[in-house]
């Protein structure tokens, strides 16, 4: 089938990162993936993406500011006419560095926080990061750039949604993304330690509703995590439909996690033009549209809304990327999700919060003072 027009590009510039979040969306084997594209290659990719119809690029990672050539990369995105948006943890760039990027064409910044509470935030990040993030947020606002705050939610910070909203307001964020952890990669390895209870989620949802009624606040994004919803999420707005992801090594993917699915053949910018990787690569075509769908998706009236959910989740949980997303209550594999919820509840009841397995290492320990 012909490929739809992509609007958005996720440019994973590197998987390197000083933070060690236990829910990192990078693959478990991130350390083996090298930064395979130089600034010239990224610049070419941006121009090709613009030709396909892309208007927006998120410069992300890992930590994109670890790239020494980030200024050139930003300039490349701007030259291609893309809206350049930096997704950062905010611990590695100072105000001067940010101003340099702004002058090169950077438009806006998404800054992650791990929690509103500094001690908890640093524990979740695995490094002392919170104070630096606050300073970086100040630098973004001082340049009058739009600031988006992103916080991944899980059982250890879900009780502080009101405080997180207050933090985002204080920082002058235009938008707050309260992203419930998605259980792939590192988050899946930490699922028992991260999965919240249904009661926690309900309380958090109430707090979000209260915050949305608060005048003058940031726009708040909050979606019930699919482990607790009856229906799967419209993952990436559909496989190979709206968003192109380019991994640090140049592979062109439909989402950040799809390379984990065994047996799919994706294109790489080191060998092929972006147009082929997006439109023709067998892996990209595999789950595009509806032809791949099994029952109950195939005849489901909601298939045009959720696109059958998440292929990576189907692969990770059910061992079959072509299965209905187990998060869907109509999936024959839905018992896996129900069991995971019960196991997390039981583990917490028996032994309290399980230790976090931080990205790249052993169990969590408090950060150095």
């Amino acid at each position, binding site marked *: 089938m012909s490929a739809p027009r992509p609007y958005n590009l996720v440019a994973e510039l590197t998987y390197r990162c000083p933070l060690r979040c236990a829910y990192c969306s990078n693959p478990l084997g991130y350390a083996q993936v090298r930064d395979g594209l130089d600034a010239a290659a990224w610049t070419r990719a941006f121009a090709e993406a613009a030709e396909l119809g892309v208007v927006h690029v998120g410069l992300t990672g890992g930590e994109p500011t670890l790239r020494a050539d980030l200024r050139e990369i930003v300039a490349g995105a701007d030259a291609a*006419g893309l*809206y350049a948006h930096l997704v950062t943890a905010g611990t590695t760039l100072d105000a001067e560095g940010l101003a340099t990027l702004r002058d090169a064409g950077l*438009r806006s910044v998404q800054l992650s926080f791990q929690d509103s509470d500094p001690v908890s935030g640093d524990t979740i990040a695995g490094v002392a990061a919170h104070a630096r993030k606050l300073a970086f947020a100040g630098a973004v606002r001082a340049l009058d*750039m739009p600031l988006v705050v992103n916080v991944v939610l899980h059982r250890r910070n879900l009780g502080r949604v009101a405080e997180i909203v207050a933090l985002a307001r204080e920082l002058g964020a235009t938008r707050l993304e309260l992203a419930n952890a998605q259980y792939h990669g590192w988050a899946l390895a930490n699922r028992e330690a991260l999965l919240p209870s249904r009661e926690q989620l309900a309380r958090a949802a*109430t707090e979000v509703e*209260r915050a949305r009624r608060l*005048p003058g606040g940031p726009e708040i994004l909050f979606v019930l995590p699919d482990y607790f919803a009856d229906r799967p999420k419209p993952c990436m707005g559909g496989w190979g439909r709206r968003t192109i992801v380019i991994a640090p090594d140049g592979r062109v993917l439909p989402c950040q996690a799809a390379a984990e699915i065994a047996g799919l053949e994706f294109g790489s910018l080191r060998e092929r033009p972006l147009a082929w990787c997006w439109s023709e690569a067998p892996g990209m075509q595999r789950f595009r549209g509806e032809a791949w769908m099994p029952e109950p998706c195939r005849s489901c009236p909601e298939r045009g809304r959720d696109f059958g959910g998440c292929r990576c989740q189907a692969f990770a949980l059910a061992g079959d990327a072509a299965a209905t997303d187990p998060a869907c209550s109509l999936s024959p594999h839905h018992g896996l999700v129900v069991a995971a919820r019960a196991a997390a509840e039981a583990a917490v009841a028996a032994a309290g919060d399980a230790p976090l397995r931080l990205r790249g290492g052993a169990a969590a320990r408090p950060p150095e003072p």
Partner: protein
Amino acid sequence: MSAASGLEARLRRVLDERYHHRHPFNVRMHEGRLTPDELRTWVRNRYYYQTRIPIKDGLILAKSGDPSFRRRWVHRIHDHDGTAQQAGGLELWLRLAAAVGLDRAEVEGLGRVLPGVRDACDDYVRFVESHDLLTSVAASLTEIGAGEIMKTRIEAFERYYRWVEPEGLAYFLGRTRQAPADAAEGMAFALAHAKGPEDEERCVAALERKCEILWRLLDAVEAAHARPAVSSAAKLRGDPMGPGTLAVLPERAVRLNETGREVLALCDGRRSAEQIASALAARHADAAGVWSEVHGFLFEMARLGVVRAAPPS
């Protein structure tokens, strides 16, 4: 009993934090910093809110099977609509309109109500329509703050807006007496009928929702006099693959048609939204509804972050 007084404290805290006495427009009004035109826009638009109140109270009456409740509540409709003997709040508001120099018939005709104001007020009526008696009464508890704000307002008008004929203030004066009594009645009802935490949550949420509605009303009034400029966060660009212009923002892209582009071209940070809407209405005098559409469009563009509205200096 302790649970009930806990609810009262929570409701009062909601008002302390979210009632529109904190809205920048009201703050400027009470500090004497509104221009005559801003004050007129407020009076004209707030009249639409006044017209919705008896409708809202009619809906509340229809939710109750208790004659004694209805007998007490119905006085609110009389307060607003008046009786054979006495002018009601709506009539007094129209006198205020005349006192600030507006054409009474024009205000009464509602033809120049801002779309953002209309939406907010209609949301309130719809909210009451679709919720039960307890929740609806809780939403009306913004009256708790009304007595105080009316007093502040009278003082501000007498001190800063002396060009307004004093007989125009009769509405405010009347409300300083009515609102505290209404508030006490509503609060007593909520405390007596909220049984348990779920009911209390509903009451708190309803009052928050109502505060949000009042806030939005003033947002719309304020935006009419703000001078919008295309935000530095928005990147306007053509789209070789589709019609119109794209306004790209950190998290979304908005597609604008030719008319939208025409409106944005006038957003230079010097003209007010009202000037832009009037200019375009004059330019397209053959088309109906242009003035309202432009105001609605600019309000939406500000919400999405495409334009940033600087309040008047």
